[in-house]
């Protein structure tokens, strides 16, 4: 019978062959045509460790580091590998509960998928770090990742330097081509943001082979694919850290801003916006909390008033008004008017003048020194009504051109993000306001002549204006960074705009000299005569801008020395009253510190007096009081609730008095061995309540 079935041997061979062909086909499919397995294998077995480079350092003009790097550690988790982690121990170390653990895990998965590492707990304290390193073997999937963190040895210039923070999805979307990844830090404001590409350096990547339990087996391919991190490059700025610190100190308890520029280079020596904050609070793991608190703060400590605050320049505008008229040949430096306490030539609009004695506006120098409103109203009208331009509308446009040339009403392109251009209104604004081009004339906008009306300027623009006047007609755009370490072509092309001299119109030196003389007279016998810089002659102009919301703003612009100026300053103190009261001394001290390197005894006394001067508006103080009270109430409530819970657990204990006084009592009593957090809350609440009460009383006294 076997003979009959001989052909079946062939059939069996065919079956075997067919099965092997199917297997081969699947092998071809898997090994040759499917690339996803290669990727999956790499994801499995190759652990990419990102080596973060040190960020570049920012130095001041004397090569003192305004910020430094220190090492901090992040606890990083790869969710897919975290099976078998001793969750209880980890939660105990971090001081979180299991619900929080799960929430963070979900966050991590949501942000970065389960196979890629995400930060679980950022910026560990040294204590936490020590505890974690001991127990890391219990937490598969978790690693401690090194990161360099900023510290600020001088605790200063927070708004200028900016801060770095973990990039978010919006940032990643915007900067796709730069290769950021979740968990990276990037500059979010200030110089950190503007010079991000310089400071960040280049991340290195080390590749390791790991096994199925994520244990590192060794370098991948002996490290031939590894890249070495390249440290970020340093920035050398024109900031003088001592001047900056002094200016910040002087603006304490005030809302305002100060800008000091070196007119010879355009380098910004100091820029302060008050209130400010200690930059160190935005590093470390309290960052998020502090950031949230500051964002909510009504006084906006993160808001840089020096480039974003818009103030009517007031009388500080007068030198520019004079220059415009001089340039157009409308007046000479000898031009004078008789002012008897006000300007009434416009009929309906009457501009009051602080002075009424005869001859206080007999010529330009006198008018500047005495800050005569009538004089500059008159000069402004002359500029607008100049026959050469046909009508006031055209005259206004010409005037606006001058303003823009002097850096008002446009951005100066300083190397900080989000600079404001303030406002020199266009004619269209007035046309709309008055209801037609022919419905307004030089009288309608008369107060522009004394820096009021709709015109505003930022402190930076005011300081830059001083630079132009000090330089007699040119300026370098204000900036912080003088040079970059190992400057590259793209850096140079960026910095070139700060190294280009900008000439402003062609006003003659003689005209500038007249204005400078006038401004010098301001400091000799004029409105700023009581502010002296030992051994230095300087030029200045005070300003008192009317503030519809409250007390007048105090303004002061100056440059020093009178000849060959080295520093130009603009100071604004909100609600500070006369320019010479609050802003003037601050500007004087800044210039003294910069030029003399130290303050004289008298200067120190003034500094002390100004520092202690409290000009924060009552409204803001009330806001703080309210916030503190709310917080105290919240803490008290929390304490009560916990106490109530405890009470339920131990019914034998005496019932608590159900008001805050009871807590105050308890808080003040020495606590026995009850080591629960309730007590902590109570004491804290009690302290806060007493504090806010004190503040309220102080408020009433004022």
């Amino acid at each position: 019978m076997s003979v009959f079935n001989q052909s079946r041997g062939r059939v069996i061979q065919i079956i075997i062959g067919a099965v092997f062909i199917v297997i081969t086909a699947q092998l071809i499919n898997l090994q040759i045509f499917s690339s996803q397995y290669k990727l999956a294998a790499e994801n499995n077995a190759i652990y990419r460790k990102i080596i973060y480079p040190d960020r570049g350092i920012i130095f001041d003009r004397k090569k003192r580091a305004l910020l430094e790097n220190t090492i901090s550690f992040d606890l990083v988790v790869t969710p897919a590998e975290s099976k078998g982690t001793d969750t209880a121990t980890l939660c105990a170390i971090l001081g979180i509960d299991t619900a929080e653990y799960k929430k963070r895990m979900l966050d991590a998965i949501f942000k970065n998928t389960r196979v890629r590492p995400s930060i679980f707990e950022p910026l560990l304290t040294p204590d936490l770090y020590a505890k974690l390193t001991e127990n890391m073997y219990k937490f598969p999937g978790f690693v401690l990742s090194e990161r360099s963190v900023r510290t600020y040895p001088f605790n200063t210039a927070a708004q200028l330097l900016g801060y770095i923070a973990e990039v978010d999805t919006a940032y990643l979307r915007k900067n796709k081509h730069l290769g950021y990844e979740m968990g990276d830090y990037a500059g979010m404001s200030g110089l950190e943001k503007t010079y991000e590409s310089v400071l960040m350096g280049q991340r290195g990547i080390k590749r390791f082979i790991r096994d199925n339990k994520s244990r590192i087996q060794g370098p991948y391919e002996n490290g031939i694919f590894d890249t070495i991190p390249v440290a970020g490059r340093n920035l050398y700025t024109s900031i003088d850290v001592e001047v900056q610190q002094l200016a910040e100190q002087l603006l304490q308890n005030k809302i305002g801003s100060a800008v000091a520029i070196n007119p010879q280079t355009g380098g910004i020596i100091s820029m302060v916006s008050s209130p400010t904050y200690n930059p160190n609070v935005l590093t470390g793991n309290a960052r998020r909390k502090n950031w949230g608190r500051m964002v909510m703060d009504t006084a906006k400590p993160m808001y840089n008033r020096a480039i974003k605050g818009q103030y009517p320049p007031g009388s500080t505008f007068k030198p520019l008004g004079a220059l415009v008229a001089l340039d157009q040949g409308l007046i000479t430096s000898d031009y004078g008017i008789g002012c008897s306490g006000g300007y009434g030539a416009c009929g309906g609009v009457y501009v009051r003048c602080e002075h009424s004695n005869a001859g206080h506006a007999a010529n330009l120098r006198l008018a500047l020194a005495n800050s005569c409103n009538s004089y500059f109203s008159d000069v402004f009208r002359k500029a607008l009504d100049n026959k050469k331009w046909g009508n006031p509308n055209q005259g206004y446009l010409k005037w606006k051109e001058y303003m823009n040339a002097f850096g008002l009403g446009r951005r100066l392109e300083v190397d900080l993000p989000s600079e404001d251009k303030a406002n020199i209104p266009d004619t269209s604004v007035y046309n709309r306001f008055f209801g037609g081009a022919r419905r307004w004339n030089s009288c309608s906008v008369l107060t522009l002549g004394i820096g009021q009306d709709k015109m505003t300027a930022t402190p930076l623009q005011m300081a830059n204006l001083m630079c132009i006047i000090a330089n007699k007609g040119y300026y370098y755009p204000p900036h912080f960074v003088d040079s970059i370490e190992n400057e590259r072509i793209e850096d140079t092309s960026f910095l070139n705009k700060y190294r280009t001299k900008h000439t402003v119109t062609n006003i003659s030196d003689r005209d500038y000299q007249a204005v400078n003389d006038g401004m010098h007279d301001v400091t000799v016998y004029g409105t700023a005569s009581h502010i002296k810089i030992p051994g230095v002659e300087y030029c200045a102009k005070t300003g008192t801008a009317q503030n519809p919301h409250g007390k007048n703003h105090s303004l002061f612009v100056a440059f020093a020395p009178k000849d060959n100026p080295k520093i130009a300053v603009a100071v604004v103190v909100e609600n500070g009253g006369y320019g010479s009261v609050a802003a003037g001394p601050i500007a004087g001290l800044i210039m003294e510190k910069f030029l003399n390197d130290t303050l004289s005894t008298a200067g120190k006394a003034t500094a002390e007096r100004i520092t202690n001067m409290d000009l924060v508006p009552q409204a803001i103080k009330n806001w703080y009081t309210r916030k503190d009270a709310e917080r105290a109430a919240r803490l008290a409530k929390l304490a009560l609730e916990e106490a109530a819970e405890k009470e339920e657990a131990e019914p034998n204990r005496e019932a608590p008095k159900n008001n805050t006084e009871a807590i105050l009592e308890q808080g003040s009593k020495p606590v026995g061995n009850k080591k629960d957090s309730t007590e902590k809350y109570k004491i804290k609440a009690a302290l806060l309540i007493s504090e806010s009460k004190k503040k309220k009383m102080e408020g009433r006294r004022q």
Partner: protein
Amino acid sequence: MTKNKSISQGIDYPVIWLYASLVAIGILCIFMVEYREGVNVFSSFIGGKTNYSKQLFFAGFCVLVATFILLTDSKLFTAFANLMYVFGLLLMVATFVIGKNINGSKSWIPLAGGFNLQPAELCKIFTALALAKFLSRQEIDFSKLKYQLIGGAITLAPAVLSILQHELGLALVYTSFLIAMYREGLPAQILIIGSSFGALVIASLIIEPNTLLIALSVIAVFLIYIARRQAKRNKGVITIIFIAWLISAGTQRFVIPYIFNNVLECYQSTRIYSMVGKDYNCADNVKSMKKQQTGNEKAPRKPDDYNVRQSKIAIGSGGFTGKGFLKGTQTRGKYVPEQHTDFIFTSLGEAFGFLGCFFFLILYIALLFRIVRIAERQRSTFSRVYAYSVVSIFFFHIAVNVSMTIGLFPIVGIPLPLISYGGSSLLTFTILIFILLRLDADRQMVLR
């Protein structure tokens, strides 16, 4: 007894060479899996601590056994075939009493020196011999149903015992004897019906039940339409088609769900479903629910195709030429579970890529075809049936094992012949081959 001049006389050397190279490749593969950098390779090969060194010892032992088999008289095998078969079955039954539990199956008999023996493995040999013995009897006409049933019973007995030992993979191996039986005259219809049934099973897993019912009905109607001429002459055709339709529909509707929910374990159903890319809900599984109620087992986990996925990743990442010897990241990282035994093929696929796999499969095909050729040149039915049994067993192991590593077959725990780590398995395949060689060497001698 002139044949005793030399044991090498009449021995088929190609098979020996193929056998030797496959065993060598096997040890190499296990070495790749176990290798760690900085280990003294020579001493660890000798040391006997690692799996590759153990496999080396097994191979040495197999050489001894092979020599011993070649030295015996081939008549021995025919004479003792039935006796050994009974002995094998008794051993398997014995495991229920003295068995040792390894990896959840109580199918091992502990031997001295820490080694364990799996009788089910050895039973393959005995079954092959017994089947050969049965079919070589003069009065047997294998086209008769009676003898077909007896033949089937011989192969099914150890299979049933294996299932009772929870060794599904080993039980499945016994179905491969169908190939040998087919060669001896088992009607082709049985194979065709068998494979159609297989197709039906797969279809009912993949396709939604109602859709499949409609498809079956359409096929039935189509067949009736084609066979309408014959139907006029013979009414039986339509009845047969109708009965076939009824059976198919019943199978897909009731039998298959019953098997998956009531017969198979939850993990087995899950594996089979995951192979066709479906999830199996263990809540439907009666056994797992029972276990849950008695609290013996944890709640059923989600379907887990980790093994297949890692296996496919390892093989797929090898690419065309592979990553190179000892350079497989997945192998070094131990991503593939059981890589030294059932998933040994992955280490090869990752290190040597498609080229390596292809060459490796060619070796296997060469071995199988060589044995088929040996089978066809036998004069005795006993030798031929035995040779085909060897081919069947090898082929089934290779096809199923490789298919499961590349995701073409559900995961069943059967080793890759001569490659996978394991003494029992290596010994079994060695004995299978060398008995064949002994029989083949004596093919001219006797007409059994």
